[in-house]
């Protein structure tokens, strides 16, 4: 356990119980690195950063349990030291990014289509509920089907279903070899190649296209990576590209127009979008810089079987893709089950939830 480890769960529980008694909404926050996502929340600040530290980590079990306020950099450093990693390579969006924020936002980096998402690596959680109880779900084991899976449900719920205080995550060894390359082929051709490679055991772990060239990362054993590198060709690429893509630091992201994220099915062909686009996840995630209105962008995403979320604060009143009526009803019922008084980040995702 690290020197700065601190268990503040009792204080957090106190603050939640006071908020429940006063019927006062809470704005749950770590460092605020992802505060720009979603809708603004009115409420008393519940600062998670005092509740921090790695609770247990045994590399041979491939499991780490960590408090929500722990800086993501601290967790990643501990894993790195043991030769392991968070395979979903979550974006930080700020130096102080916390583990709790990573789970709440549920965002994954370039490896996601091959490794799985943040939620895929969640094994267990501790949560303060809207009943004012500090409960434990899931566990520290790979396989566990006892009870409903409330831990994975927490991923991407933006704090609307409870206060996540601790999470147990599956981790994996870092790949033995990693190499990145740039291949100058147009988008149509790149998507065809990606569909072809996707059906073969080619060790791709990241694939992006910026309109000019295809960027690829290969990861695995020496034999497979070297063979694929030789077969695919292209020029060497600075691996820093993937961090810049994940953290939205590439020149593309400097465009002043609002940023949209389109999540589309695998193998969706090139789509004409009203603005500049950058492809990640082999095309399953497309970033768009556009002044077009939300309806236009969502209609295009819907047309090809996907959905769209706005990543620029204030650009639209409902940054999350709106839900169909029955779906929204079940969201509200679920929220009411876990947070009957509606005090946890009310309206962060949807005004009704």
């Amino acid at each position, binding site marked *: 356990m690290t020197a700065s480890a601190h268990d503040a769960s009792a204080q957090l529980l106190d603050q939640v119980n006071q908020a429940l008694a006063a019927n006062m909404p809470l704005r749950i926050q770590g460092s605020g690195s992802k505060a720009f996502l979603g809708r603004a929340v009115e409420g008393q600040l519940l600062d998670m950063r005092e509740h921090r530290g790695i609770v247990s980590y045994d590399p041979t079990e491939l499991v780490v349990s960590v408090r929500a306020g722990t800086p993501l950099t601290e967790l990643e450093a501990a894993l790195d030291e043991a030769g392991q990693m968070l395979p979903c390579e979550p974006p930080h969006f700020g130096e102080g990014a916390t583990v709790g924020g990573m789970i709440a936002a549920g965002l994954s980096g370039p490896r996601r289509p091959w490794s799985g998402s943040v939620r895929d690596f969640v094994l267990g959680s501790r949560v303060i509920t809207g009943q004012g109880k500090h409960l434990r779900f899931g566990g520290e084991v790979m396989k566990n089907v006892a009870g409903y899976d409330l831990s994975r449900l927490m991923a991407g719920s933006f704090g609307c279903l409870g206060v996540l205080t601790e999470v147990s995550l599956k981790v994996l060894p870092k790949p033995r070899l990693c190499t990145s390359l740039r291949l100058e082929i147009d988008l149509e051709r790149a998507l065809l190649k990606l569909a072809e490679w996707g059906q073969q055991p080619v060790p791709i772990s990241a694939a992006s296209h910026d309109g000019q060239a295809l960027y690829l990362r290969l990861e695995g054993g020496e034999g497979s990576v070297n063979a694929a590198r030789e077969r695919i060709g292209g020029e060497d690429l600075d691996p820093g590209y993937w961090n810049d893509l994940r953290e939205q630091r590439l020149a593309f992201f400097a465009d002043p127009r609002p940023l949209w994220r389109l999540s589309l099915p695998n193998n969706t062909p090139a789509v004409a979008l009203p603005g500049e686009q950058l492809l990640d996840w082999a095309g399953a995630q497309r970033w768009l810089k556009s002044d077009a209105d939300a309806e236009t962008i969502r209609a295009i995403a819907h047309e090809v*079987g996907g959905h769209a979320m706005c990543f620029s604060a204030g650009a639209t009143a409902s940054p999350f893709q709106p839900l169909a009526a029955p779906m929204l009803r079940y969201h509200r019922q679920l929220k009411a089950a876990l947070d009957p008084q509606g005090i946890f980040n009310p309206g962060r995702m949807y005004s009704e939830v």
Partner: protein
Amino acid sequence: MNILYDERVDGALPKVDKAALLAELQAQLPDLDILHRSEDLKPYECDGLSAYRTTPLLVVLPERIEQVETLLKLCHQRGVPVVARGAGTGLSGGALPLEQGILLVMARFNKILEVDPAGRFARVQPGVRNLAISQAAAPYELYYAPDPSSQIACSIGGNVAENAGGVHCLKYGLTVHNLLKVEILTVEGERMTLGSDALDSPGFDLLALFTGSEGMLGIVTEVTVKLLPKPQVAKVLLAAFDSVEKAGRAVGDIIAAGIIPGGLEMMDNLSIRAAEDFIHAGYPVDAEAILLCELDGVEADVHDDCARVSEVLKLAGATEVRLAKDEAERVRFWAGRKNAFPAVGRISPDYYCMDGTIPRRELPGVLKGIAELSERFGLRVANVFHAGDGNMHPLILFDANQAGELERAEELGGKILELCVEVGGSITGEHGVGREKINQMCSQFNADELTLFHAVKAAFDPSGLLNPGKNIPTLHRCAEFGRMHIHNGELPFPELERF
């Protein structure tokens, strides 16, 4: 404590007039296949947990989703409980019928609707068998990764309901990791899509919540699964050990070397001998434990990893390390493991298969605990272990024809699960809670946690008509169960009145 539905502790069920319901179903759904005579209902009185049987009120065998929709609407209006069932291979009694409920058999929905090799997905009806998906994808060199040992018979709808696993979970994940989208019908007969064709979907991750919810939140009507490229090669190493502790440590050493095997299985001496007698896999029958380690992927990597793992196994004290020399031997090595259950069935009139998970480091202590319990209860226990992911399958050997042996086996099984919980594990890794482990849920979760589970259930099914009594015990059941299982002199659920 009996696990059959007991209204006294599990809650009152609605009283249903069978003749009236049958007449109404026949009128509203004239082309629906309905079984109602007792001789026709008999084959459906249990699932894979055959020690427990209940004759359902009616069995329906729909062939069109519209029939299910109408049926659910009618049952919702009339307050009739509905238990969904796929192939009925589940081992935890998740599809155990109710005397006052309809058994909704989804097995006739057996069409593969679409295989898209470039999109790497398959869209199938819920009654499609697990293995049939991989067979349909095989021409494209693709497959569906989760492979529960019942994969030849079990259906994908049931896999979703139970979050089924298999022997390759450590590397390839459980059902929940291999789904894109599930179409469901709610208790009210309303259609809803969870997940999407993309890698994520807006709102809460209801697909994750729904996976493994044991038919309590809705009925699966269609499943879109991810397909993966078949690994180029797979090789299997067999290592023998003179103690289970050494074998357990070797597993940790393989992981520490940065290698994630496709499959990593352990068997103890009793299982080894039973499997060898049955399959003649070439197992070393004198070994206290064997490890089977499958490495899969691109040929060059697999070759390197085999050399690394062999070295690790030898350093860990393996008395023998063998690489399957060809595909035939590889298949034989696996056949021994995959047939361990029926092999044990040959050396005992009956056996009871458990499904606890533990942090791997706790293995030596847990095996010792199991050995002590085995002695105390006078019943042999063979251990088969998904060593990579900590999922144990102790097989308790007993003879149901001997008065009291089944009860003893169940009590022993319950103790083993409680031992798993004590060391930080779970009462079920992949078989589900169903009715089988309904009492042990009281050991793993406290009253507040169980109360929250009931609230989640009520958010989807306020009248509690979908598979009542499964998965989550009532607090009254726990109070009663706790009275028989007092830990450290403390009564669990002290706030509840006792019966």
